[in-house]
């Protein structure tokens, strides 16, 4: 269970974070949340689908990393083999928390605070990058984490807008990935959703214009283009099978 605590330069002055990616750090998930404005980078390497958040049933875009539970085909003992690491992975072990305004506080905006998961195996005081400078200021690493968290924060809101519009135009459909490997092993992936191309192609001018003016049209096409990366995932599996063969 993660144990998120508010980051501060007194209690955490010696905190260091290991920034490598290995199965032992819990990075071996089969999918990672992604964000619409991140699709451009993601679609170059990973297939993008929607999954439902098991907590509330809402759709979330994910980058597919593997084809079975707890399988990340980009990850090995040599690290994460890709040009781009999804922001939702890169942020670890930090996240943004929203603190409710206290009565009597000047600004009415809820404060956005950085939290750190103290139970993350990345967190320690000897290895990795320092979070704070010796006198307590933000390290360049922490500055970059804050930027990343802001990026994620914006992405979360953008995702909601994107999905609301897709639902409004009824553009989502269920997709089942049926994968047959060279050795005959079959694997069915359920619980994923994507854009229904037939419905997309049948949208009238007003709808397309609406999507375009909201800046969302490009995300739809990037998502569709990303699907060809499923082939790359299958190729990674085939390579692993060959390497493990006696």
């Amino acid at each position, binding site marked *: 269970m993660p144990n998120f605590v508010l980051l501060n330069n007194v209690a955490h002055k010696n905190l260091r974070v290991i920034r490598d990616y290995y199965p032992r750090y819990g990075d071996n998930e089969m999918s990672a949340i992604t964000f619409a404005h991140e699709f451009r980078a993601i679609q170059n390497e990973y297939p993008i689908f929607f999954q*439902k*958040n*098991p*907590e*509330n*049933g*809402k*759709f979330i875009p994910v980058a597919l990393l593997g084809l079975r539970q707890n399988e990340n085909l980009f990850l090995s003992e040599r690290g994460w083999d890709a040009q781009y690491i999804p922001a939702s992975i890169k942020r670890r072990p930090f996240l943004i928390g929203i603190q409710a305004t206290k009565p009597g506080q000047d600004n009415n905006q809820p404060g956005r605070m950085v939290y750190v998961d103290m139970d993350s195996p990345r967190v320690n005081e000897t290895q990795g990058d320092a979070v704070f400078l010796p006198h307590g200021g933000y390290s360049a690493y922490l500055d970059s984490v804050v930027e990343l968290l802001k990026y994620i924060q914006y992405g979360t809101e953008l995702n909601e807008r994107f999905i609301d519009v897709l*639902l409004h135009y*009824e553009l*989502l*459909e*269920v*997709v*089942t*990935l*049926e994968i047959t490997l060279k050795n005959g092993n079959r694997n069915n992936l359920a*619980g994923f*959703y994507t854009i*229904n191309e037939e419905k997309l192609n049948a949208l009238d001018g007003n709808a397309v214009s609406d999507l375009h003016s909201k800046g969302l049209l490009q995300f739809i096409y990037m998502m569709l283009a990303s*699907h060809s990366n*499923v082939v790359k995932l299958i190729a990674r599996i085939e390579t692993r099978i060959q390497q493990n063969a006696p």
Partner: protein
Amino acid sequence: MTAASFTLKCPFDLFDILFDKNYNKVVRGSPMSDQVTRVVIVGGGSAGWLTAGIIAASRLGQVQVTLIESPDISPIGVGEGTWPTMRSTLQLIGVSETDFFRECDASFKQGSKFSRWTSLSAEDDYYHPFTVPAKYHEIDLAPFWLPFKEKINFANAVCPQGAICDLGLAPKLITTPEYGGVLNYGYHLDAGKFAPFLHKHCVEKLDVNYIRANVTQINSRDNGDIQSVTTDLQGDVTGDLFIDCTGLGSLLLGKHYGIAFIARNNILFNDTALAVQIPYSSTTDNIASHTLSTAQTAGWIWDIGIQSRRGVGHVFSSAHTTIERAEQELRSYIQPAVGEKMAESMAIRKISINPGHREIFWYKNCAAIGLAAGFIEPLEATALVLIELSAKMIADQFPANRSTMDIVAKRFNSALSHHWQRIIEFLKLHYVLTKRTDTDYWIDNCRSESIPENLQELLELWKFQSPWLHDETLRIEMFPSASYQYIYYGMSHTIDAPGNKNNSKLHQAENLFMENGKTIQQLAKVLQPNRELIEKIKEHGLQKI
């Protein structure tokens, strides 16, 4: 990669056709020749509005539906339990399941649990779940279960649903789409909220014409058809087909046409119900997802949990007990939940049931649906499902013109007569299998003169072969033979010489029993308590896909 696949069958194709521009023209005014285009439903309530919704949604643009509701008569509001059919009905009508949960105080129903029907023992109970036994159409598991009957009850051996109900878990997840289920389910709902919910949708989305007035007179054509009804506030309303949803008054079919009422109190004795609504002890109490039915000395008590309250009622035979005694049994039943003081003071509503139905259900250009057609104790929650089934039959086989109406009416009458007969037999089955002899009520229920001939034959047959597919005569029986199995074996009846035990299937049967045990364990891990899921649905909504 393949295209989308979706296990729940959606009526979207149907809707695509119905919304097609070619059809998108409501036919108004006087029709050509003898075409049937104007349906007038007299009476609101669950019966009136479900019928309006089903016909209007199925025949959108082809038929104009008008519903006349009296401002002076309030619906009786019985029928708070549905069958799983309600999911496809609501989907057909076009309401969202999320809205239904938000507005009708609804909860899940996964079946019924019968307590103390076989004996007086506190451990005496069994489930009639909505999910049929595993691989039911391939294999009859009953004979294979019999040797283990002391170790595991029938329902728990062949289906995971009873165990899931006992754990208080919901039949689906927040990620399951609207109207889809992990396990089969229907609903418990507040009838007082359900009718207004349907009303709003019918008027706003389905173009149903609403008239709030009392019907004061029925005007006939030369051929004996109803031409129009006169109302006190809105003048005459003319129609081609009239549907009598006037409840126990049966204004059109009963009063106007004088269609005889066939009493069935010689078979089913219960004729009175006392109903009470009790609060949960706290807002976090879990909600049961089954109807609990507990046998009493001269009847039984229903217990239905919806979001905000429990509805509890005692239905009994007034020939076998006094109303005071029945009331006392009801107050004793609710006492553990509400305390002695509240149990003694809570207001109780009395409902009279004249068990039986009309001789026919469609005469000339008038069909009756709901209590206007018949009324029976709510032992298997047949009220709403009969409304759905009747309205769907009319919508699906809607007569194009007056000449074909009599043919459709004939079919309707024959199907409904069959369904009523089977409902009565199936309800009676719950009584005749009892081993209770503590009161005359239970003894009288087992007297052969009170048991319909067909049921007597079935009981004779089941001494040697278990109830199974051969017992189904219609393509769609209201109670499939699986239901008979759940009651028959649930009430500890066994067969002497298991005729349909096919020993070559022993291995398959053993595997299915084992798989069922595993399924229960897996489901127990992923499903969440009813109230938690219902709260989530209300907060986040369910997705449509």
